């Protein structure tokens, strides 16, 4: 496909456009691939901590979703009672889907591992949730839609939910506070909740690590999560080889032969 005659027939703009695309694919593939493989190892290498005695810093906790005590959390699309949601509404334009609206619950997720409760602040979290529903419709309406497949609607709705008692796996920066979250006097920025937002005395928080380590939330088991991340790593490496191969081929066909 990319023989020297084809490459030499490209004008300068075409040639460099292809070169930039191929080089970007290779560089991004290499970066994402190595990063994903390194993250998979980090997840495997991080031991599970019990909340009541977890060390301060980067930890892994496993537990069940505790009901939010500030009342019900209803998902915006299906009005389902949940502890966390993420949704996306997309519109079909020609062949591609463009996002019309997207959102994620910002309420802390309470994780109970049987020893204590930890409040996970989902801002900037990477959530891998397999409780996902996708359906189609003909209106951009984003409230009160039942998850029924309407056939070939121009709008696509996707909703991911975590519900009470769902088993969750989290990795992040763990902090134990001197005072419970809901007294509003804590120095921890993650702990600045509105009055009465949390009626339970929760002393432990999990938030995004400042050193760039992954901040993960999943309802998959650790092994499935690692397999998924590692698979995306190998896809990145494949992009590196394909993109890099094309770039090398372009350069050689243009400048050497």
């Amino acid at each position: 496909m990319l023989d020297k005659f084809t490459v030499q027939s490209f004008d300068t703009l075409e040639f460099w456009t292809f070169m930039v695309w191929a080089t970007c694919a290779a560089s991004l593939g290499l970066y994402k691939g190595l990063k994903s493989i390194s993250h998979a190892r980090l997840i495997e290498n991080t031991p599970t901590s019990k909340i009541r005695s977890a060390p301060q810093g980067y930890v892994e906790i496993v537990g069940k979703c505790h009901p939010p005590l500030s009342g019900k959390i209803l998902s915006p699309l299906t009005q389902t009672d949940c502890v966390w949601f993420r949704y996306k509404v997309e519109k079909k334009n020609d062949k591609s889907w463009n996002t019309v609206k997207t959102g994620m619950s910002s309420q802390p997720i309470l994780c109970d591992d049987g020893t204590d409760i930890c409040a996970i602040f989902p801002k900037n979290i990477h959530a891998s949730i397999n409780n996902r529903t996708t359906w189609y419709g003909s209106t951009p309406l984003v409230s009160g839609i039942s998850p029924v497949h309407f056939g070939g609607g121009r709008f696509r709705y996707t909703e991911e939910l975590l519900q009470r008692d769902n088993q969750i796996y989290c990795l992040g920066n763990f902090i134990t506070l001197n005072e419970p979250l809901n007294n509003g006097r804590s120095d921890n920025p993650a702990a600045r909740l509105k009055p009465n937002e949390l009626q339970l005395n929760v002393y432990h928080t999990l938030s995004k690590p400042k050193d760039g380590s992954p901040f993960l939330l999943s309802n998959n088991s650790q092994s499935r999560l690692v397999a998924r991340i590692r698979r995306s790593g190998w896809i990145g490496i494949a992009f590196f080889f394909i993109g890099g191969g094309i770039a090398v081929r372009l350069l050689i066909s243009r400048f050497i032969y």
Partner: protein
Amino acid sequence: MEIVFFVIIGIIVITVFYTVSLYNGLVSLKHGVSKAWANIDVLLKQRHDELPKLVETCKQYMQYEQETLEKVILARSGVSKARKAGDIAALGIAEGVLQKGMGSLFAVAEAYPDLKADASFQQLQQRISNLENSIADRREFYNESVNNNNVRIEQFPDLLIANIFNFKSAELLEFEQSQTEDVSIKGLFD
């Protein structure tokens, strides 16, 4: 031909990055084990400081239970020695003896209503009980860190890096056998 050359270069680049990542992973596991140990050590030290206060409080009420109290003090110093020496195997045994001694002390305390009602005793008992729970959790965490480290350095390809750079396996912190045996109900009534 040039594609083959690129693939070889690509494989070399990825191998170099992957080797660095393996090495860094092993270093991180090694430090994880040290950190997990340090986390237990802090709690052992806190309990070491609390135990004499408990014994002193008990002494005021339990004049005829000197042997039980001495056993706790001796076991405490056994744990302290093993802890300071960083001897994991000895610590596991000493912890077992101390846990047994503490169990006896709290069982005997049941026969002293005045002691049980003492606010200071209640507070210390609660504090030590919380420390014991935390030690148990952190022991579990330490053992998981050790297990992650030991599995990694025996697995391919980490094994190659571990052998070249002399990464060592760590020792699990295991309780003395008597701790994990089932309680004999018959023995309690003898």
